[in-house]
Each structure stands twice: as C-alpha cells, then as structure tokens.
C-alpha cells in the first residue's frame, strides 16, 4: 500500500502490528462503540458556528499575486530544548523564507497582546501589513529592514510585505 505524496510518507514504517488498509476508508471501520462516541461528540462538541463562518471567510484573505514565505523556524518547536514561553519572559522567534528573502520576527507578549520586532534579510525597506485577528496594521521597514509594531492580537498572524521593485510576499499564517 503506497501513500505517495502524503505528508506522512517518511513516517510510514512497517511494523508487526501493521495491516493493509484502504487508506481512504473510514478509519473507525463502523465499530458500534465508535459510532456511539461519534454521535455523542457531535452533540456535545460540534464545531462552533462562529468558527465555521471564519473558515468560510478565510478564502477572502487569500493573496493571489504574492509569493508565500514559509515558516522555516519557530523557537518553540525547533530549538533543542523545548521550553514553555511565558508572558514577559524569553521572546519567541519565527523565521519565514521565500527565495532569497528571510523575514525574522520576534514576538514579545505585552499584556494580552503582542509586540512584533522584525528584520528583513537582506536588509531592505518595505511596506508591511500585519494581518491578525483584530484586523490589519500598517508598518514600514526602514532602510536596514527593521520594523516594530505593537498591539498585535494573539491568534492567527501573517505579514504581507511590498518592497519597491519586488513582488509582494506573504508569510504563512501562524498562531502567536
């Protein structure tokens, strides 16, 4: 059974307990106890309506003509010693990469929100739109590629950058 192109290919190791399955089939395989649990879950913990609406609206956030800068590093999952990040303590560092451009963002919890301290590498000025739960904020990266923006709501966050003579770049959405 091949799982070509699946995001879990590398971890699909055969073992003693493994069996051949129809990968696209129902993984609960119709077990009556499982079906009962599914019914209960649908009653007590369905997807909240407001979240469904937000998911539908996500389509409008789509950037048609921008290059995507993928998340290349996140200090809370990629550092050797994974530690909890508390408000007011060690800041969290995210790095996004699109071709030659790297966007580094330090996230500092301030009160109930965040302050972002950013750096474009190689350094260049840019107009930046911070997209977050409470809306958008505009900030400018200076000639050294540095920018600072406060009062960014926690939750989903993405940056859209436009530098002169370059294509627009958007960073992958991340929960901050």
């Amino acid at each position: 059974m091949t799982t070509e192109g699946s995001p879990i290919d590398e971890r699909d190791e055969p073992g003693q307990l493994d069996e051949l399955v129809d990968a696209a089939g129902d993984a609960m395989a119709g077990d009556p106890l499982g079906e009962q649990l599914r019914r209960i879950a649908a009653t007590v913990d369905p997807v909240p309506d407001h979240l469904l609406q937000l998911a539908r609206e996500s389509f409008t956030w789509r950037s048609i003509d921008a290059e995507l800068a993928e998340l290349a590093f996140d200090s809370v999952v990629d550092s050797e010693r994974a530690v909890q990040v508390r408000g007011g303590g060690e800041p969290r560092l995210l790095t996004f990469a699109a071709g030659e451009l790297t966007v580094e963002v330090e996230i500092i919890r301030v009160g109930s929100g965040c302050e972002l301290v950013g750096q474009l590498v190689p350094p260049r000025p840019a107009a930046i739109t911070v997209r977050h739960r409470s809306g958008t904020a505009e900030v400018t990266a200076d000639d050294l590629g540095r920018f600072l923006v406060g009062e960014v709501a926690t939750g989903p966050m993405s940056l859209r950058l436009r530098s002169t003579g370059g294509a627009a770049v958007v960073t992958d959405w991340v929960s901050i």
Partner: protein
Amino acid sequence: MESNGVGDVVLAARDGDDGAWRRLVERFSGLVWSVARGYRLGDADAGDVFQTTWLRLAENLNRLENPERVGAWLATTARREALRVVRTDARRVPFGDPAGMEHLLIDPDTPERIFLDLEQVSLDTDRDKAMWAAFEGLSGRCRELLRVLMATPPPSYVEVAGALNLPIGSIGPTRRRCLDRLRLMLSDRGITGGERYS
C-alpha cells in the same frame, strides 16, 4: 465526497470558486476541530488552531502537491499548529519527551467541563454522559486517537495518520486496543452498550 471529487473541489477553489471553498470547509471542519480537541485545547486555543489552519490552506491552495489529499494536509497542519499552541500557552508545563507525549494540563474549558455543565443537553442520558466520562478518562494517546476518529464526517486512515503522526498500518490495531480499553472501563462501571460487533 470521494477522493477524486475532493481533488476537483480543491482545483475549483484554486480557480477562485467560493462555493468550492465552502464545500471544503463543510467536509473537513469536523476533522480540523477534532484534532485541536484531541490535543485537549480549550475553546480559545482550539479556535486559534482551527482558524490558522484554514487561513493556511487559503494561502497554500496553489502549492498543494496532492489536491485529493487535502484532508490529510489539513489534519497534519492542525496537528503542528496544536503542538505550537500547546507550547506557547502559559498554562502548560515544560516538556522534553522526544516521543511527543506531552503532559498536558486540562484546560478548564475542555469538553468534559462543558459536557458536565450542559445538564439540559438532550442526550440519551446518563449512559451517554457516562460513556463520554469514561472516554475522558482514557490515557493521552488513546484519547487523542479516538477524539480524531470521532470527527464528523468520519476521517480516512490517511487523515488520521496526519492528525496523529502515526503509520497508517498501526491505526487499526491501536484503535481496537483503545476501544477495548474503553469497553473494559465501561463494563467496570456497569455501563452497557459498548459491545463489540461480531
């Protein structure tokens, strides 16, 4: 929605079809939510994971290598985002388990608390409540797996594999072991209705 059909819906969304996007939301929202809840995230954190995952898909539509596998992509993305959120939440404790079996504190807004507060919810009762309470009493990995399996519509093996970072071939045996464990707990508590089908 068969897997071929899913691929076509993704391609239509890629072309800007808002209706196709809404069909994806309908088809896979249950799965994404169940991944967040499987990792025992409370309302706010689960909401962040859910919203971030869908926003990510919107920006990555053109980059999906296998549109027909978008369900597994969403489940994997939700898992990674859930682990990210777990580690940044101030209520969590530090961990270092390479197997990824983080010790999670129960958020006060977990479904168990919600369940027990909803006395007016019209469930078939005491038996359903007891069944859910027994499920909540399962150990971490079984609880995670079963919560994802409980998604509506039912997830496929590929999607469950992405949600839990498990080899596809181990899902069936692990599911059976976890359900057997639950059956044992139910019978210990004198709750009927958990019989295995022949």
